[in-house]
């Protein structure tokens, strides 16, 4: 799958300082490399790009022609509902007042220290990105279905559950990565030790499962338990590595889906199931969540290179230090094949991390990854635009832009 993507990349002339310029010179809209299978639609490079990428996942959506090809930030957030332009976070937060208090209620246990540890990240300082998407999607689906702006209690529950599952996985990830800080403060494992940190993560997960069961909908339970499995498999994917350059990118995207996008996609799908019986709407919600989720992670990977530690609340070059080759690195490796050896040894030799970082910043890895994120956001917007206009739908459109332009 990704081989097509790589061959197209080599063919593009607007990529600077290519080490291997590829056979012949290429115009911007030229066909892919000579080994590509004959395919009339592949004349549009961006089409084949999206086709290759979206064919990686089982829920393939028929891709129509793309109209935008510029690498500039997309601005298709025209509000069609006629209502006042609002900040999506403000709009979402109207439903999420008391989010963290409610989560803490789910964690009501008698054991003081364990409770304290489990509540540690539910202090109101996280971005609450996932709950916001969930509640906006809930209302957008409800309005689409029967013009009702009311949100069901069960849908709001999903927002809590998504945030809890996310936090549980963060707690475990921090132990696995031996991380010392997150969101500007010490990690649970550094304060209380690894043994207790793992138990705190398990506790949050169990609380999320109880809340999920109480909604009383077996379909929703199936959708969200899939997330838990995906999170674990994503971590396993991260443990292993691929030798082949082409496989690496597919592997990276699969890992990104499982670790980040699956939760968002499936939470969106779950609220749509609760709000609306139409399977097409469920699919729209899922695709929006999936594409935004992948874009979100891609930008996160970019920020690991471009941002500084204070802004992020966690140390940067973190991925390199963990031996992980993310988007910018994989793109940079195209231009600097000497990075291959470093990737394969997971940046374990002294000086590897810094050298890799330099290569990335010298290359167009960051730009390429950002561009890729834009494509995913395009797709997300395309999907969500199929829903009936509403302030929430427009907020979701805007949110996908914010994903691209955020700096932490």
């Amino acid at each position: 799958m990704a081989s097509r993507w790589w061959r197209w990349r080599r063919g593009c002339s607007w990529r600077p300082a290519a080490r291997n310029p590829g056979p012949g010179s290429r115009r911007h809209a030229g066909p892919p490399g000579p080994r590509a299978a004959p395919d009339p639609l592949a004349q549009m490079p961006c089409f084949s790009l999206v086709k290759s990428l979206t064919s990686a996942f089982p829920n393939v959506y028929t891709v129509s022609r793309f109209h935008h090809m510029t690498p500039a930030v997309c601005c298709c957030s025209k509000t069609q509902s006629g209502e006042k332009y609002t900040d999506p976070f403000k709009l979402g937060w109207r439903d999420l007042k008391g989010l963290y208090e409610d989560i803490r209620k789910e964690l009501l246990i008698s054991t003081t220290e364990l409770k304290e540890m489990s509540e540690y990240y539910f202090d109101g300082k996280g971005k609450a990105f996932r709950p916001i998407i969930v509640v906006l999607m809930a209302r957008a689906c409800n309005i689409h279905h029967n013009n009702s702006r009311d949100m069901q209690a069960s849908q709001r529950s999903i927002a809590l559950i998504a945030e809890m599952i996310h936090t549980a996985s963060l707690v475990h990830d921090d132990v696995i990565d031996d991380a010392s800080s997150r969101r500007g403060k010490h990690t649970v494992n550094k304060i209380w030790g690894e043994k207790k940190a793992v138990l705190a993560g398990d506790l949050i997960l169990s609380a999320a499962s109880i809340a999920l069961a109480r909604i009383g909908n077996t379909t929703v339970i199936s959708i969200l338990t899939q997330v838990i499995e995906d999170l674990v498999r994503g971590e396993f994917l991260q443990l292993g590595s691929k030798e082949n350059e082409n496989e690496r990118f597919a592997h990276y995207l699969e890992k990104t889906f499982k670790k980040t996008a699956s939760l968002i996609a499936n939470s969106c799908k779950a609220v749509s199931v609760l709000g609306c019986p139409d399977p097409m709407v469920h699919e729209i919600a899922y695709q929006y969540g999936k594409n935004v989720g992948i874009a979100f992670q891609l930008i996160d990977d970019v920020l690991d290179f471009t941002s500084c530690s204070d802004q992020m609340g966690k140390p940067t070059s973190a991925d390199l230090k963990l031996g992980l080759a993310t988007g910018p690195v994989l793109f940079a490796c195209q231009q600097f094949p000497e990075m291959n050896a470093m990737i394969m040894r997971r940046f374990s030799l002294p000086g590897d991390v810094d050298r890799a970082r330099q290569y990335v910043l010298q290359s167009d890895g960051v730009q390429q990854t950002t561009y890729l994120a834009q494509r995913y956001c395009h797709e997300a917007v395309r999907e969500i635009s199929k829903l009936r206009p509403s302030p929430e739908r427009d907020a979701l459109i805007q949110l996908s832009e914010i994903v691209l332009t955020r700096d932490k």
Partner: protein
Amino acid sequence: MRLQHLLLRLPGYLGALGPPRRLWRSRSLNSISPVGSWRGQSSRSPAHWNQVVSEAEKIVGYPTSFMSLRCLLSDELSNIAMQVRKLVGTQHPLLTTARGLVHESRHNLQLRGLVVLLISKAAGPSRVNASQNYDTVSGIYSCQRSLAEITELIHTALLVHRGIVNLNELQSSDGPLKDMQFGNKIAILSGDFLLANACNGLALLQNTKVVELLASALMDLVQGVYHENSASAKENYITDDIGISTWKEQTFLSHGALLAKSCQAAMELAKHDAEVQDMAFQYGKHMAMSHKINSDLQPFIKEKTSDCATFHLNSAPVVLHQEFLGRDLWIKQIKEAQEKGRLDYAKLRETIKAGKGVTSAIDLCRYHGNKALEALESFPPSEARSALENIVFAVTRFS
């Protein structure tokens, strides 16, 4: 077949095994009057316990040994076994846990799953379900079999998570830091993988009440494990001042809740009414409690002192001993049993045996055994019910 092959090879992967942990075996003990009407089996060897279990397994139709390992050895994640293999030669607890799982499973000791299956069979189909066409094998619905597997998965997941080490408490004798870090990583991921499988299994049961029951059992179990952790390894060997009632609460969380709620869930799956569900819950709870007390009593009842096992200072006989003695006197006894900062377990054991802790622990074990048998009385007589009774007899047997 493939699974059998893998399991046969696993012990080889995991390196040479020391004497296996036999938590569930009853050994030759001093004769004390038995609970209930024991049907005349007077064997004193470990074979006796194994016999109880293998009889039970025939009743439910197949060996329950390999339940939680099945998913660990699936094609996609055979790399878990490979990763654990990398830990051979290190001191990470995960290796011990893995060995224990494999070794015990070869001798049929995954008891929770077995109990769930037996109680499912003992309860039979409910009046509501009698007309329905659920597929049953040996009188047990396939959803109940799934549930038994899920119970074992949850238990094993937390067993694995118990084996995480605190990196800042490591000493040079524990070996290189990176081995421990790697071991922690694999332990967390394996445990999470088992939990994820359990959650998926629960989702497939399509019964939200069952999901809620097992999720709350998981929450209880996590708290129970937390208390276990906190109660061990204190300075000067002095544990928290907990009385027997707190001990019972904490032991319910760490040992009773999972089995109790699982038995109840098995009844729910067959659509039995609240009364039957409660009886199943009570059986599970009391059986698990008496089993835990039995296990705690082993160091104090064995005749062979060559084992010189250490014991937990928060185990039942010790907690009861402390309760009779009062806190101050107990602390004094601990100090007296210490020599240059190291605890002489043999000496402390004698001190405890001389007190009332051991006998009252035996009584408590029998109390719970009797409550378990009482709960069984509401089930119609059957092979499965007898097997459940035999299990109670086996764990309350101290002769």
